[in-house]
């Protein structure tokens, strides 16, 4: 299994402030890779660069052997790289079903010309619907299909956001603090689902996470960022022993 995502010497600064000094990292196919670091260490900025929100000032991002830096977010999504946000960005006043039905790529019904002619897209629509149903039952929110997303619990919201990526046929999903805004106890279950989904759909995850305990149990590899640089990397256990990591982490948090 090779690297599905390679970040090579990426730099990004806003008006003189270097959010990312120089970061290179690799994400192995089928792994759950953790990304930790104190606030302002450039984790989210890195995500935004990977997801195509920002153009890196230098360096390149390679996904599946293809350069994606400089592409627009929607193009990157269509290549199979999905992301979630720290404070989830779903479509609040739309139902769970609608939210999920939005995610499949290249729907026939989403072209202006085909949309008015039902029969052109209705079969496809049903196919997607059944997939959605299946997935929703897997993550145990099957009965919430007509609740608007705004009314979902924190954990459910995270799961919906994650599963959007899956329905979009993503190979790699960037999770930005999946346990933020989730009750402490259910944070674990979020990761259990992540694990389950990874096996089911042989996905890869890159996770920003603050809770070290979860990282130990669920991630295969961890990068520690500080001040926009990779401070250290390795298996969670090793990393957690690294003194400067502890220092940086305690200092930051």
């Amino acid at each position, binding site marked *: 299994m090779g690297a599905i995502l390679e970040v090579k010497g990426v730099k990004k600064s*806003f008006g003189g402030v270097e959010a990312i000094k120089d970061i290179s990292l690799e994400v192995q196919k089928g792994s759950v890779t953790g990304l930790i670091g104190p606030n302002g260490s450039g984790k989210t900025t890195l995500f*935004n660069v990977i997801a*195509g*929100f*920002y*153009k890196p000032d230098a360096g390149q991002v390679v996904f599946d052997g293809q350069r994606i830096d400089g592409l*627009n*977010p929607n193009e990157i999504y269509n290549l199979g790289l999905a992301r979630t946000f720290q*404070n989830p*960005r779903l479509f609040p006043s739309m139902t769970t079903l609608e939210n999920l039905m939005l995610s499949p790529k290249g729907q026939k019904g989403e072209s202006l010309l085909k949309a008015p002619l039902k029969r052109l897209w209705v079969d496809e629509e049903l196919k997607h619907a059944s997939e959605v149903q299946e997935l929703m039952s897997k993550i145990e929110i099957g009965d919430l299909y007509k609740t608007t997303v705004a009314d979902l619990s924190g954990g459910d919201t995270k799961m919906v956001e994650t599963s959007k990526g899956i329905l979009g046929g993503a190979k790699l999903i960037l999770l930005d603090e999946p346990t933020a805004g989730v009750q402490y106890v259910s944070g674990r279950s979020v990761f259990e689902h992540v694990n389950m989904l990874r096996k089911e759909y042989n996905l890869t995850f890159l996770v920003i996470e603050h809770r070290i305990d979860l990282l130990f149990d669920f991630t295969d590899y961890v990068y520690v960022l500080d001040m926009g640089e990779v401070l250290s990397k390795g298996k969670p256990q090793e990393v957690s022993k690294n003194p400067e990591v502890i220092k940086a982490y305690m200092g930051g948090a």
Partner: protein
Amino acid sequence: MEIPVELLNTIWYICVYSLMAIPLTLSYRISKVLNFAHGVYVTLGAYTAILMSAAFGVKLSPFLAVPAAFLVGASISVLTDMMVFSPLIRRESNPVTLMIASMGAWIFIKNAFYALVDILQKRWMTSLFYTSPNIDLPAQVAIAGVELNTRLLFVVSLSAISLFLLGYFLTKTRLGMALRAIADNLDLAQISGISRERVMLITWLVSGGLAALGGFALSLFTYVSPELGDQMILQVFACSVIGGLTSIPLTFVGAVIISSSENILIVFLYRYLGIELSFRPFLSFFALLSVILIRPPAGAGGGLPYRFHLRGLSIQKKSDS
């Protein structure tokens, strides 16, 4: 010596536009309301003096008219805020909703005022639809051998003083800093311990009052009608947008640009390119559009996908809604 009249007009308009546009910028920056009702404050400010002088039938002292105009504009603007904007803001409505609400308020107040003027006109048997206040100012005054228009001097000093006071208020006083803090982000303001509602109130009070002063200043220069606000609002918006609707100094620059384009540029176009004078309003819109295109206002957040690639603005929800 003779000062070219184009220049004088430009100065007039710099004063008037900055008095109208800067409060608009201020209110947008702090409340994120693209306020179309702003034009109404202008009209009311202009008419306060007119109605007063008509009612008492005397020459009105400018030092009475100015505070009166300010008070009227301020009170109406605060009223608008209390009845329309703050409930909506409390409900975290998006900017579009707020804009529409302001349009509603605008249409309502304007026509209510129209009705009032119509009734008064019938009562007093004098024409109020198109007039100018009867202000107690000598026409000309000679300074260092130069004949100067007193009203111009008055308006220049009026705008200079009020803008200076505004600047002082924003930069030096605690309240003013709280204002700016809120404009930038909320947390700071919470720290400074001043409630958001109060700051909003102050903002609307100031902006409404200043806009009214702008209206009054214009009514010294020319005859005004209840349509005044509508006729000016787009130019005023143009000034503010040039200022990115966030920066007060840039808004002043905008006022300078628009007034000189309306008073000087058009003249050059007419003389050397033979463009009809009646294209004058065209220029302000042209300026507006070109500025918007060349340099999208930060307040706009920029469209997709430019937002990220051009400006790298924050993509947190705050900036969008």
